């Protein structure tokens, strides 16, 4: 993991002092809420329906046990004993008091964490693949370049007041777990014929009111030029992105309006100038310095098969189910990737109590080289666990209600906070996700249905990523009543697609039955080995539409 040096420490400490001063000015009444707003938004402090919310940056979703324990401590001390992991791989506390925020920031700084750029119209926290360093077909650990981007973008003087927020995601494998094509910039690590590592660049993806899939504008940007290339994109956007209407201000609208080719032409021209100036050339020594922090841990030489594991699977069906859904293949023989579901049946997606955080930190310390990852699907990952330890890990997780065996299954849903917390929402999201979860709680049925992603948003801003859910649910308000519009066929992986609207919205009473009908149509129509999304791509919307709205 990356560790701060003296410069990183100093910057974060100076930022804490600056924000503490701004909070003091607000609390003394020197600043009105209106005047304070732009300042708090530079630091992840939002005003929600009931209270302030604090968003903490977890760069590229990587945490140490020590950091997770500090988050547990903060939840316990300043909040209500839990936190909420988000689709941005961040953590939100929903109930902190403003007066406590400077203390929280000091606590965070003591473990090399902060809230910088978790809100506002700046380059936000960079996100990446939760399997970084563990995935089989990884070209390069995406956290190396993510950390370099984090530093370059921190308090960037030119790009702190962009037309809108700006999100960058990095994937180091051809199969994309970071949803890079629905980000403002998606970076795909690639290798040229000579084995040299560089970057494919996608621009202009995003969800929200106008979902767009990013367009590729560069096939291979050499490593030493990446920052210059990113600066070129940012400058074109900062100069030409629309500022007249906040719903048309994201880079996706600029790319859409001028076209990907013109975007590429402008970026290339700007890139040529920046490159010529030379100040953003990325020296190999700095890459090397950062790479050291992400060196593979001391893996043991193990046989790939573990007899302990095989025996435990045979002896415990609960464990067998968990292994079936929550474990992914690791690149090193004898190791596995463990996914910890934060989607218990009937629970709030992404919520985690302080006690659970402590338990996970202990497990990571003992069994996974002291490291935890947050996924954009609101789960946690232990990247490097010996297969022979899986049963012990499972037992401990189970004791803390953390062994829900549903990763990538129908109850592993994404949901935004919705009307229960958020002032923008039109409808509740969490209760819908909870009821779907209860309806499909039977584990055998979940496994029978197989891979299925249901994403729910409480308004068109799409924080619940409904456009890219295999089934997407969007809460809308019709004359004061909550309705739910359904899309099918979305995906956020290397075959990113925006889902198709099935038809008129459903009431709160109807929506769960509608989801079940969609599932049943799939089960009826699927061919051997087909996932829901495969069947949908084969048969299209019509059969779903016919059945959903058929008069009985």
């Amino acid at each position, binding site marked *: 993991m990356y560790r701060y*040096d003296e*410069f*990183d420490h*100093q*910057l974060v400490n*100076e*930022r804490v*002092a*600056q924000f503490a*001063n*701004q909070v003091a000015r607000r609390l003394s009444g020197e600043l009105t809420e209106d005047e304070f707003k*732009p*300042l708090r938004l*530079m630091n992840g402090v939002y005003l929600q329906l009931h209270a302030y919310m604090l968003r903490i940056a977890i760069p590229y979703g990587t945490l140490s046990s020590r950091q997770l324990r500090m988050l547990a401590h903060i939840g316990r001390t300043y909040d209500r004993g839990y936190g909420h992991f988000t689709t941005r791989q961040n953590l939100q506390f929903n109930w902190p008091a403003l007066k406590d925020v400077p203390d929280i920031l000091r606590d965070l700084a003591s473990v090399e964490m902060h809230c910088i750029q978790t809100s506002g*119209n700046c380059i936000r926290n960079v996100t990446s693949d939760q399997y970084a360093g563990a995935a089989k077909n990884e070209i390069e650990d995406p956290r190396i370049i993510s950390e370099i981007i984090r*530093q*370059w*973008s*921190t*308090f*960037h*003087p*030119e*790009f*702190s*007041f*962009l037309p809108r927020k700006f999100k960058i995601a990095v994937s180091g494998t051809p199969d994309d777990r970071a949803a890079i094509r629905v980000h403002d910039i998606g970076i795909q690590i690639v290798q040229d014929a000579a084995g040299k590592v560089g970057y494919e660049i996608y621009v202009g993806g995003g969800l929200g009111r106008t979902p767009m899939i990013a367009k590729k504008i560069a096939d291979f940007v050499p490593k030493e030029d990446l920052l210059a290339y990113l600066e070129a994109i940012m*400058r074109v956007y*900062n*100069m030409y992105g629309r*500022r007249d209407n906040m719903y048309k201000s994201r880079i996706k609208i600029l790319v859409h309006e001028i076209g990907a080719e013109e975007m590429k032409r402008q970026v290339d021209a700007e890139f040529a*100038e920046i490159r010529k*100036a030379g*100040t*953003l050339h990325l*020296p190999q*020594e*700095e890459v090397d*310095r950062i790479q050291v922090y992400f060196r593979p841990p001391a893996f043991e030489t193990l046989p790939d098969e573990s007899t302990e594991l095989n025996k435990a699977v045979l002896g415990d069906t609960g464990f067998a189910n968990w292994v079936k859904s929550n474990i992914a293949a690791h690149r090193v023989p004898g190791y596995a990737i463990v996914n910890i579901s934060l989607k218990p049946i009937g629970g709030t997606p992404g919520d985690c109590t302080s006690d659970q955080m402590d338990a996970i930190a202990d497990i990571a310390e003992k069994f996974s080289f002291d490291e935890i990852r947050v996924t954009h699907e609101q789960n946690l990952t232990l990247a490097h666990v010996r297969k022979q330890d899986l049963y012990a890990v499972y037992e401990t997780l189970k004791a803390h209600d953390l062994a829900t065996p549903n990763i990538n299954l129908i109850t592993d849903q994404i949901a935004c906070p919705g009307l229960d917390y958020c002032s923008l929402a039109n409808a509740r999201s969490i209760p819908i996700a909870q009821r779907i979860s209860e309806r499909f709680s039977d584990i055998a049925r979940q496994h029978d249905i197989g891979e299925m992603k249901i994403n729910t948003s409480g308004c068109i801003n799409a924080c619940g990523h409904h456009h890219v859910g295999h089934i997407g649910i969007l809460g809308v308000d019709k004359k004061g009543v909550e309705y739910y519009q359904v899309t099918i066929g979305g995906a956020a992986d290397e075959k990113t697609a925006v889902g198709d609207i099935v038809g008129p919205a459903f009431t709160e009473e109807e929506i769960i039955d509608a989801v079940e009908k969609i599932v049943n149509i799939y089960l009826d129509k699927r061919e051997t080995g087909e996932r829901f999304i495969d069947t949908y791509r084969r048969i299209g919307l019509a059969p779903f539409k016919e059945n959903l709205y058929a008069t009985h």
Partner: protein
Amino acid sequence: MQLIKNGEFIEDSFVAVGDEDTLPDGPVIVSLERWQAEREALSARNTPLGVRLKSGQEPSIIADDLDKFSVVALEFPAYRNGRAYSYARLLRERYGYKGELRAVGNVLRDQFQFMIRCGFDALEVSDKITPEIWAECSNFFSHYYQPAADGKPTVLSLRQRLAARAQSGGAA
């Protein structure tokens, strides 16, 4: 309004004139439109001249005229509109402008440091800004990660310096 130039609170010697105003004697700042309409008459005046660019008026438009100007004023119509940060860097770093680069409009204390880094050496601020506030807000951070128009050493270059020092035996 108060003008701060290179950290000094000074009297503004330039008069901002509207497009219809009669030009007073002495240094003036005119709009881009007026400059384009009256460039010969304005160039013939034997007194320092400034031009003011609105958000959306790119510096490339005046890139060939920069030797005519003692002041280029870039407008921030709202603090949220950060276009002029890019304009400032282009003027300094690409077009080599060496004269006064002035931030005007919604220039707030929490943006001072960003403006300085992008190459502004003069800021038109509200009268509420005191030298104490300036001292505090223009200097929050000791180091910067990224290169910008101020030419300050980046964290990267400081790290390289430390590494080189360590290699040469740790002499401070």
